[in-house]
């Protein structure tokens, strides 16, 4: 299982998904009404490293994090 976490202002509990790539995560989240509207503006990290490709492979135990727009300071 891959754990998907939603950070900051996204009010959603983590999900556990049976997926093998980030493309599968995208497909699952695009059909999730609670999180769909965040997807266009969120950055994505796998195991706490930012990634830029949907072809990123995932294995059981990996953690995917969604990071919405930021504003520190």
């Amino acid at each position: 299982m891959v754990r998907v976490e939603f950070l900051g202002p996204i009010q959603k509990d983590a999900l556990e998904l049976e997926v093998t790539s980030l493309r599968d995560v995208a497909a699952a989240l695009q059909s999730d009404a609670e999180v769909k509207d965040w997807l266009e503006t969120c950055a994505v990290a796998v195991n706490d490293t930012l990634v830029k490709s949907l072809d990123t492979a995932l294995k059981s135990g990996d953690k995917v994090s969604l990071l919405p727009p930021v504003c520190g300071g």
Partner: protein
Amino acid sequence: MLELFDGPVPVEEIMVRWYHDEEGSNYGAFIPFIGTIRDEDGISGLSFDIYEPILESWFDAWQERAKEAGAVLKMAHSRGDVPLHTSSYVAAVFSPKRKVALKMINDFVEDFKASAPIWKYDLKEGKRLYAADRSTPIGGSGILGA
């Protein structure tokens, strides 16, 4: 050095401590930046969430960049609620030369605003409201969108 505090950043303590940490290091310039919370739009303060693992790796990458320029970076930020007229963010550069430090503090704070995984909320009328209109998508955002 990256320091996180629950509530306001203790500015006086940090400034004195950072100065003394480096006073024998032969740096010619110490350029601090202190961000304070202004009274505007009826807020009683700001509040922050931080994702620490990525904040730490972002900061470590900047520290490497500073090291290559012969400089050192320090940063402190708040978690949770921070009232008006206190500080939520302090950063500083120490470097042998003034020009390096002045450029680096500007570049560092700009990238901090654009990339550090910190989320800001207005505290207003008892609510904690995400500051969506002042927030910036991190570079590379949107890959999960349709």
